[in-house]
């Protein structure tokens, strides 16, 4: 899991893993998905982004990974501009998207091998990395099967393996545990905690607040395309004057009547 491709930046001047400044994204339909978002994620951090559906979480991720073009504002990944220096910026990012967007014509091995190739990995390195990841995600037996034959849980694991294939320094997980069973959720938690401990910066979006609480060093709330609060889980609770992260979240979305504290 050591990073051999990209030299570590000088410790004194290490740029943040992700620095977003006044990011605005307006779609041609006129919808303003992001309305001036700024945030900074330090190298090695485990950062959670929470917010209701349509808050702008995926749009922020898409702007960072080149799947959407920012209308204005800046995005820098380890100091590289995500628009003007996209080659370096994207090379540092691994994206596990919310959708199970696997190419159904390819086998598991090809899915990982081609992905590694898109990021310039050499054949020998790709071969070793494919075996390592298939083993780590208990997919070795399916190596030569086409992706369409996989169960939902296996597809989810393969998507994570694909995101990790090129050893990204910043891993973006967009709702990685949506619709997965308890064992797989815990398995994924253990895995991402391990790679975070080994130095990979992680940006996680999730609807499961206990997941964010369990995994993330820092959490930001996004709503209506704006970042409304950020901090550690206790800091957020204190800021909203409530007992925990869930109540803080309910305050944010204006549904505090749903608080579990009010359940008889």
């Amino acid at each position, binding site marked *: 899991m050591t990073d051999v491709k990209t030299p570590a930046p000088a410790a004194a001047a290490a740029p943040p893993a992700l620095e977003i400044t006044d990011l605005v994204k307006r779609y041609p339909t006129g919808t303003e998905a992001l309305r001036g978002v700024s945030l900074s994620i330090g190298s090695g951090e485990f950062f959670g982004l929470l917010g209701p559906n349509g808050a702008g979480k995926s749009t922020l991720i898409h702007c960072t990974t080149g799947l959407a073009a920012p209308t204005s504002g800046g995005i820098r990944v380890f100091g590289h501009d995500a628009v003007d220096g996209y080659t370096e910026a*994207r090379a540092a990012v691994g994206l596990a998207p919310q959708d199970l967007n696997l*190419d159904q*014509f390819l086998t598991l091995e090809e899915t990982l*091998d*081609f992905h590694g*190739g*898109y990021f310039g990995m050499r054949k020998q390195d790709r071969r070793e990395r494919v075996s390592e990841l298939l083993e780590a995600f208990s997919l070795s037996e399916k190596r030569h099967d086409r992706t369409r034959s996989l169960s939902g849980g296996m597809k989810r694991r393969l998507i994570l393996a694909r995101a990790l294939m090129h050893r990204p320094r910043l891993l973006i997980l967009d709702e990685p545990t949506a619709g997965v069973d308890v064992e797989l959720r815990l398995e994924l938690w253990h895995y991402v905690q391990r790679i975070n401990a080994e130095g990979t910066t992680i940006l996680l979006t999730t609807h499961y607040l206990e997941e964010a609480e369990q995994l993330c060093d820092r959490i930001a709330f996004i709503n209506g395309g704006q970042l409304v609060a950020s901090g550690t889980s206790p800091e957020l609770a204190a800021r909203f004057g409530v007992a925990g992260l869930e109540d803080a979240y309910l305050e944010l979305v204006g549904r505090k009547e749903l608080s579990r504290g009010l359940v008889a």
Partner: protein
Amino acid sequence: MSALSSGRFTLTPAQIRFASLLRREVARFMKIKRQTIGAPLLETFLYISVFGAALGSRVGRLHGFDYVVFVVPGLIMMAWATNAFSNNSSSILQQKFLRAIDDQLSSPASPAELLLAFTLGGFLRGGLVAVLTFAAASALVGVPVHHPEVLLPALFLVGFFFAQLGVLIGVRAEQFDDVSFAQTFVLQPLLFLGGVFYSASLLPEPFETLTHINPIYYMIGLVRYGFLGYSEINVALALGVLTLATAALFAVNLKLFRSGYKLRA
């Protein structure tokens, strides 16, 4: 495929990236080769059988050639054009459907690398079908090659042009109907009415003049000249216009890929 593998040579990361993008396109059509290689070959053989053996004896000779020999150059060109087009339009649309294309789009690949890799996928499939068709037609009926210096650039340009057109339609398409509409209602009629199966000079008016405004007529004319040495068109002018049209289409596609049109939000 072996020449594309990164193990034998010391390739730069950009070269590995491009080779991988192209390998993915080739892998897709090779996995379904009954449909992507076998079916078009069978179709061409059916044309040769019907128009060569069955009808050819009734038609007699055209401009000094057996009818089937007159038809084969157009069939070879049609095989390259339709396969290049349908490969790329289908491949891109299928990947867009499940958003699998995001894997390439979020990689460090440049718009030009992506465009060229998608283009060459269909170009290679069309070329493979065309070469196999040529080999089989040569064995069956004997096909001369009079002007390779015109034939090769003409076929390459036609293949590249239709590969580009396939990319354009695939990127624009939002449903499979959009792709089949372009193929069935635009491409196929233009190909059939462009003179694959007949000589425009034998048509009554206004059909002869109408044929002359069909750009595919000139493509078939170039390829037929390359094979048979027979021409109804200004070869140099047609080659020049085809080169310009191919370059213009590439420029349009590159602009679309750079802007992220219908690929990136």
